[in-house]
Structures are given as structure tokens and as C-alpha cells.
């Protein structure tokens, strides 16, 4: 059985998490393969919740699968698809089945997904969700009723180090820290100077004791894919010099080059001690995560 993530956060000096993206359908074969492959290599396995507003196998279901296989799941919850009743109910269920790490996200807009005519919920936003989890942790529901059987979640949130303009993002980040989080998994970072500036800002903020920052790593496998992400995946800004680098890699060696580049980023974060760990999001290429970690010397 994997160690609870909250312990790992306290004890381990370089934390590695990865992301398992469920497919569109009830067949969980491939998903299980990914879980088996990654569960022992990472300290926590995030599960996306209808990523990019595309309808998929549920995040809660995948977490249960990870628990059954002895992994340490991190449940991602977005505010796009559920209102405050549904979110609280899901959290109670998750905790009762041993899932006690949650990443609170606002969620991608409906327009970026494949059900463009759906009614967006956004009853809460990420900061309000963090407050909600704390309320549940204190044994009460959102309107103050006592819970028969409480919960105790390890709470995570995200941040966008390369946002432009950066000041509004930093203010939002401060609100999340004020609300109280245990760990932060950032959006994809590529420019280490930007990340360093972000970390400098972080150290000047308050309520940061014990908060672990994991740098988000999204490997790129080709120039077209990278520019597509820039264009339509929210919160991702791949700098041109990296797009050119992957572009120059001869055909057929793109995968290896992608792994090498991602590995280089992870190693730099580790060796220069920029963050407390990394969160590798391989978006559909989970099988390459071990190779990336290897390339980074982990």
C-alpha cells in the first residue's frame, strides 16, 4: 500500500506526482495499465475530472481503481460540472472509500470541450472550494449542519506561474494560501526564470508554512501539438525556442526528444531546488512518464 500523500509531503524532499487521464467509455483496461505502471514510481497519482471539459470516465471512479491497485490517488474536482450539493456529497463518498487527497480546481470552460451546448455550473470557484473542504474537515457541511462522520482531506490547488499579466494571478494565489492548502501543483512551466520569479513571489507571501510547490511539467511531442496547446489548451504557454527544438528533432525521434526535454526540465527543478517536486502531466502519453523520470535521474 502506498504511503498517504500527506506524510510524503512532510517527509520526502523531492515529491513526484503524475496524472492519469481516464478515457471516454467504461473500458478501464488501458487506465489500469497506466495505474499499474505508475503507482509505485510516483508519490501521488492525480486523476483529471472531465479534462478540458471533455466528457470522460469519472475522476472518483479512477481514484477507486487506484486504491484497489494500492496506489495513492489525488482526486481532482472542478466547479464546472457540479453544484455545491453534488461536490459535498462526492467528497463524503471519496473520503469514505479512503481517497483523502483532493486538488481543488475552477475547471476549464465548457466552450473548450466537446459538449459546447451544456449549461456551465460554476456554483463555486477554486478558492470557495478550498474553504468548503476545510468546512467539511471541521465536521460541518456548508450551511453549518453537523456531519455524522467527518472527513480529513489533504488539500491541493493549482497556480499559473507564466500568466500574463501575473499580478492578478498572484493575488488569486494568495487567496488560496489564505484559505489554507497543503500542496500546489502548478500549470505547465517551461521557462525556469519565470518559475524562479514565481517562487520568489511565493516566499514573500503569507500562510506558506508547510505548503509544498510541485512544478507542472507537460512534455511536448511535436511542434504542431505544442502550438495547438498554446492556442486552445487553457493556461499553457510553450515558448517558441522549445517548439523549434522539438521541430528540429528528425521524424521518428520526436518521442525520445520529448522525453529528454521533459527530463531536463525535471532535473533542473530538482538540482537547482527551485520547487519541492514536480507534477508530470503526460496528457494521453502516461506510458512515457517512467522514461521521463529516468531521464531526470529519479
Amino acid at each position, binding site marked *: 500500500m502506498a504511503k498517504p500523500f500527506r506524510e510524503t509531503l512532510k517527509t520526502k524532499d523531492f515529491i513526484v506526482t503524475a496524472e492519469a487521464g481516464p478515457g471516454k467509455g467504461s473500458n478501464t483496461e488501458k487506465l489500469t495499465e497506466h495505474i499499474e505502471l505508475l503507482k509505485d514510481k510516483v508519490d501521488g497519482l492525480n486523476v483529471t475530472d472531465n479534462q478540458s471539459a471533455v466528457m470522460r470516465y469519472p475522476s472518483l471512479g479512477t481514484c477507486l481503481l487506484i486504491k484497489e491497485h494500492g496506489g495513492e490517488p489525488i482526486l481532482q474536482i472542478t466547479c464546472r460540472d457540479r453544484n455545491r450539493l453534488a461536490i459535498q456529497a462526492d467528497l463524503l463518498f471519496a473520503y469514505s472509500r479512503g481517497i483523502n487527497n483532493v486538488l481543488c480546481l475552477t475547471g476549464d*470552460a465548457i*466552450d473548450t470541450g466537446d459538449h459546447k451546448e451544456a449549461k456551465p455550473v460554476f456554483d463555486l470557484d477554486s478558492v470557495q472550494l478550498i474553504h468548503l473542504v476545510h468546512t467539511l474537515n471541521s465536521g460541518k457541511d456548508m450551511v453549518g449542519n453537523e456531519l455524522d462522520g467527518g472527513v480529513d482531506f489533504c488539500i491541493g490547488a493549482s497556480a*499559473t506561474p507564466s500568466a500574463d499579466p501575473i499580478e*492578478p494571478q498572484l493575488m488569486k494565489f494568495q*487567496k488560496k494560501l489564505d484559505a489554507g492548502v497543503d500542496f500546489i501543483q502548478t500549470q505547465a512551466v517551461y521557462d525556469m526564470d519565470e518559475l524562479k520569479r514565481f517562487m520568489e513571489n511565493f516566499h514573500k507571501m503569507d500562510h506558506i508554512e508547510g505548503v509544498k510547490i510541485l512544478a507542472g511539467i507537460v512534455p511536448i511531442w511535436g511542434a504542431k501539438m505544442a502550438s495547438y496547446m498554446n492556442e486552445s489548451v487553457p*493556461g499553457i504557454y510553450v515558448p517558441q525556442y522549445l517548439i523549434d527544438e522539438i521541430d528540429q528533432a528528425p521524424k521518428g525521434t520526436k518521442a525520445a526528444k520529448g522525453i529528454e526535454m521533459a527530463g531536463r526540465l525535471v532535473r533542473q527543478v530538482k538540482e537547482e531546488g527551485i520547487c519541492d517536486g514536480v507534477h508530470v502531466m503526460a496528457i494521453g502519453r502516461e506510458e512515457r512518464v517512467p522514461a521521463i523520470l529516468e531521464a531526470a535521474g529519479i
Partner: protein
Amino acid sequence: MVIAERKPLGEIRNMLAGYKRILVVGCGTCVTICWAGGEKEVGILSSQLRLASSKDGNELSIIEAVVERQCEKEMVEELRDKVQEVDAILSMGCGVGVQTIADIFEEKPIFPALNTTFIGMPEAEGLWTEKCGACGDCLLYWTGGICPVVRCAKGLLNGPCGGTRKGGKCEIDPEKDCAWVLIYRRLERQGRLDLMRKYYEPKNYRAVKRPGKVQAMQA
């Protein structure tokens, strides 16, 4: 001001299939100002309908009329004689106008010629943009007069989200400014950024029990 937009002709003609005598009613207030359902647009739609039906060889007789304000019972009442002479009514008012006419002339089928889109203001000549969502609990006092409930794609109270694009643009549309970046810049200029640093509780989305009702005190 209520903003509306005319439905495509094809959709309107499908609604009117089988009806021979139609009353096309414009409204002289909001939809005139936003060029959707005023007297001129009534003329244009009626002319289109006559042209289309004569082209298909079926006869169609149209009476054109304009009510000062379609959401007032007394003003809609003036249509009574014309309504007798027709099989169906095509209203070019906003959704409220359509329903006021429907309530008064219950025996006659009523069809909307417009799509009521939002409460907004003229941005440029012929261009209107949404500014208010009538949420019933106005919070413009702490956002520097920019409404995130309507102008932020996700209606966040503790914005911005992580998806803002380079240059402070919105996640869903590179042309659209992120409302929260606009709020940040305005509050910064006014030196009131602490308003944005504050945490805001989840919004009371039932401030107005829908469908809303307002009972004013007897003046």
C-alpha cells in the same frame, strides 16, 4: 436595455407554415433602439415574407403594426381589431412582448420573430454588448463597476482563473478581455486593490426566486 436579434427567415417561415393571414407586430422601445424589431424591421421582415411566399406560389396576407411598448397590456390591447382579421401573430418584440400578446390574445397562436439575447449597451454603431445578467444581488461596488458574473466566462467571484491568455485575454476567446484583468487594472488605478484581495463567499444564486417578482410599495 433589452437587446435582441432577428431569427433567420427560414426558422420564422417554418413556424408560420399553414397560416394564411399574419399580423407582424413591432415594438417601439428597446428593440427599435437596437435595430431588431422597430417599424423599419417590421417592413423588412414583412417584405421578405411576401417575397418568399409569392416565390413559392402560396398566398400570404400580412398586416404590419407597431406597439409603442409590447410589455404594456393597455398598449397591446390596441391591436384587438387587427388580431381578429388574422390567423396568427408574429411578434417582433422581446420575449416579454411575445408573452404579453400571448396572454391577452390567448385564442391566437403567437410566434417570436426575435431571439432576446441580453441586457446591454451600444459598444459601437450597430454593435451591442452584454453588461448585466440581472442576477438580483449586484456586486459592482467591489469590482470597480465591471460585472464578473456576466463578463467573466465562468462568472467567478474570486478571479481570474488559471486559463487567462497572454495579454490578459479570456480563456475561451483570444479577442475578449478577461473581466478580472479589467477589474484588476481599474481597481489598481483607483488604488482600491484590497477589494480584490478580499475573499468572497459563494454567491447567493437565489437572491431572486425565479421567475422573479418585485412588489414595490404603493407610491
